């Protein structure tokens, strides 16, 4: 188990969210969509220009920009 930034995760890699450090509007938006500590995510893919990133969260697909993914730390399954 290693903690790494969401941005640096590879396609099809899974993990559990350890911390969300975003505050304000972005933080609220991220949490509303279920990205809170303890949630399991899988990287589903990236847009043609490698940004935004699409994740699988609790059975649905969510998209985030890379610079927003920077606020999310994930404990990655190896």
């Amino acid at each position: 188990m290693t903690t790494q930034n969401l941005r640096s995760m590879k396609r099809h890699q899974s993990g559990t969210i350890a911390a969300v450090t975003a505050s304000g509007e972005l933080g609220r938006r991220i949490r509303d969509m279920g990205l809170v500590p303890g949630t399991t995510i899988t990287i589903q893919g990236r847009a043609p220009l490698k940004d935004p990133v699409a994740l699988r969260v609790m059975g649905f697909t969510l998209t985030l920009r890379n610079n927003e993914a920077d606020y999310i730390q994930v404990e990655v399954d190896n």
Partner: protein
Amino acid sequence: MDASGSQAALNQGPFAQTTIALAGNPNCGKTTLFNALTGARQHVGNYPGVTVEKKTGSYTLENHRLHLVDLPGTYSLTAYSLEEVVARDFIVKERPALVVNIVDATNLERNLYLTLQFMEMGVPVCMALNMMDVAAAKGIEIDVARLANLLGIAIVPTVARRGEGKESLMQAALDAVRQAGADGRRPLEITYGPDIDPVLKQMSAHIAAHRFLTADHRPEWVALKFLENDEQLRCQGEMADPDVVAELDAMMAPLARHLKQTLDTYPEAVIADYRYGYIRSLMAKGVLRQTADHSRLEISDRLDQVLAHRFVGPLLMLAVIWGLYQFTFAVSETPVALLEGVFGWLGSLVDGHLADGLLKSLLLSGIIDGVGGVLGFVPLILFMFLGIAFLEDSGYLARVAFMLDRVFRIFGLHGSSVMAFIVSGGIAGGCAVPGVMASRTLKSPKERLATLLTVPFMNCGAKLPVFALLVGAFFAAHQALMMFLITLVSWAGALLVARLLRSTVISGPPTPFVMELPPYRWPTFRGLAIHTWERTWQYIRKAGTVILAISVVLWAIMTFPRLPAEVAQDYAHQRAAITDSQASDMAATLAQVDFHEAEAALRHSLAGRMGTALEGLSRWAGFDWRTNIALVGGFAAKEVVISTLGTAYSLGEVDPEASTSLADRLSRAPGWRPLTAICLILFVMFYSPCFVSVVCIAREAGSWRWGAFSILFNTVFAFGVAVLVYQAGTLLGL
């Protein structure tokens, strides 16, 4: 919320009206359920003061008319977006007897997050657990009775697409309204943890003691929203009693400090964590069971592997837009020709039965040509909207936003700007008015402003007939290709101008892009039909009212003032002289005189004078005075460009034979060549939005300054582009 009020409503005997709000996450099937419940008994309007669409309808059960209101789809009830504020305000101010919360069974955990927030508000809730069929197919088993018991609300499984469960849902809703009236509200008690709970309790007591905002809200909810740093409620609080706000702040300050120091977090984050914690505990109590292999790729994901693929995705996206054009033009060809035939027949009927004069001229040139020109394109618009509705309802448009966000960001916009652009006609055939309104989903004022100022550059349904006409007249062999190029050019223009605006008049940092990619779904026939019909009907209504009035007004300014008597007499003398001469080419010469008289009359009219006055300037872009008149009319509504050109040319022509289409006339008219058509297309694409759009822009941007800006800036920009192309093209000998 007002239990006694809802009870009173139920007691008013047969057909007493009870208001029920339908709420849920975006893509949970809420609109499908609403359509299944209300059928055609729908009314579409706006929430007061804002431009969020409000759909209402009714459902009759046991002599009760249930008044259903479709709230905008939201993930949460913060004051984050306008939709959330609208949904929240409706519940607080209109006090529906019940909220029917539509929950996507395939996505239970995230959907329950909204459910919890309704229950925190203390409003009676009944749940429709929708898409049970999809959940079953995915191997998701939900213990409905257990979940209902744990939450303390009625839950009805539904499959909205097939209308399954709607009767039991409405019965359960009515029962829940009665029960809420009988034993009062029953707010959910959940814990937000050892840090928050004591402060929340202390604040609630303080709020209750001072009756602070308690006329509309539960004290616990006010306290919770203050801890969540809710801007809207805070503003209301400041107006109601600033002292209490200061006291509440004092109670919260140590908590916020403590959380920051020990956990590096915020009260609102902890509250969200505990809400999700509560939901996970529900799941752990045996509510949810996943029987199928979790790692199995769903159909939607497999589709995305191709449709959102790095290389294949964008190519397919272009192919889809291209296909939409092929479909629209191929399918609408026959009905368009049929309608043209009908109006041609009407014209010849009037022509044959009425004596020459003002009335005949009004009917032929003002009404039949004007309205016929616009209505003739209804099939085109109908099929275009059908195609767009299909892409929207199937979930593909969200993929377009996902794939294009990186590109949009370069131009200072947002992935969600795509929706506003597409609604405005990014895939040709929308309307800038709803497009400007769609920009409301953008939170950042700067990206929103840039979006709503540039969406009018898109090819709306009203410009489409103008383009179709010109393309048909001058590029008949390459219609689809030309329309495709026109779309690309309008996008390029809009994006470059957006970049220009974002780096000059509206500069600033970007906003979050947190968006759901809904699973692909096969759109329902009813959904597509309602969607398509609403938009097409808007277009027809505009044609029947505004366009008719404008056609008549334009006919008037093109007819009056009439030629001075002595000039008219001069033409009469000429005619008499020709008739007397009995020359062999008498008919042709007579016609020539008529043509000159008609042209002189139009030039003499108010519109002719305006057009002629502008000709000195517009000649640089290749536009003559007739085109100028049409473009001035286009400010009222873009489709008027066609009807005005039609009127202008049929007035100036020898034989107003209605069956000759305007496209034919233009391609034969002197001064017209492909380059002129291209310049006119470019000018119509970029110049001032129609006045309805301008009014919307001014309202959405919050200032008439921006409305005026869009008229002036766009017209100058369009003229610049047209002049550049015309002059360059002329130099190259085109």
